[in-house]
């Protein structure tokens, strides 16, 4: 298989609580990404990482933070969850930044903020 797993697969949380989603890869890829997918918007980039402790913001980064202390793990944290952050979150990995390399996605985490 692709060697990328996300946890948890489903989560319901209350508004104002912190939430951390985990992405784990066994491919030793340098690049890791967090996306959210919402109807009508497609996949939107939240944050990405190009190495251990090297991260940068995507187009919808407000309200989210990330950490990458090891090559294999990339964590996404919602510091204080809001209803607008109800979404399906996907982690992706890519071997290199070259345009010829595709993304490999995890199976997603469905997050509901009530």
């Amino acid at each position, binding site marked *: 298989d692709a060697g990328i797993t996300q946890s948890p697969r489903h989560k319901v949380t209350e508004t104002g609580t912190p939430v951390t989603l985990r992405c784990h890869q066994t491919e030793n890829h340098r690049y890791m*990404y967090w*996306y959210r997918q919402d109807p*009508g*918007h*497609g*996949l*939107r*980039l939240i944050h*990405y990482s190009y190495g251990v402790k090297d991260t940068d913001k*995507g*187009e919808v980064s407000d309200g989210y933070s990330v950490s990458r202390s090891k090559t294999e793990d990339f964590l996404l944290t919602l510091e204080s969850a809001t209803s607008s952050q109800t979404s399906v979150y*996907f982690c*992706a990995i890519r071997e290199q*930044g*070259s*345009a*010829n390399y*595709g*993304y*490999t*996605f*995890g*199976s*997603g985490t469905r997050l509901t903020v009530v």
Partner: protein
Amino acid sequence: TQLLEQSPQFLSIQEGENLTVYCNSSSVFSSLQWYRQEPGEGPVLLVTVVTGGEVKKLKRLTFQFGDARKDSSLHITAAQPGDTGLYLCAGGARYGQNFVFGPGTRLSVLP
């Protein structure tokens, strides 16, 4: 900001029919990728096209990159229920730049 548009948004057809879905932008991309996503799963890469005018075939699927590298099409011949899913295109402008994803075309192939 580079944007990708996809059309149609939804498509429902009978098994055995042919179809074409489109991916368009006002921006030039160095490459374009197509993904298929099934319910409850992440997108899976189908193909990458990098040269203007390039045509790639994957069994019954034919992908074309526009000459100006601003658009792409996906043609499916004799669609099958297994082709059902969300088809996403993604464009990359240059090395190291993150790809931009279109909103997708949701295809339903009825038996």
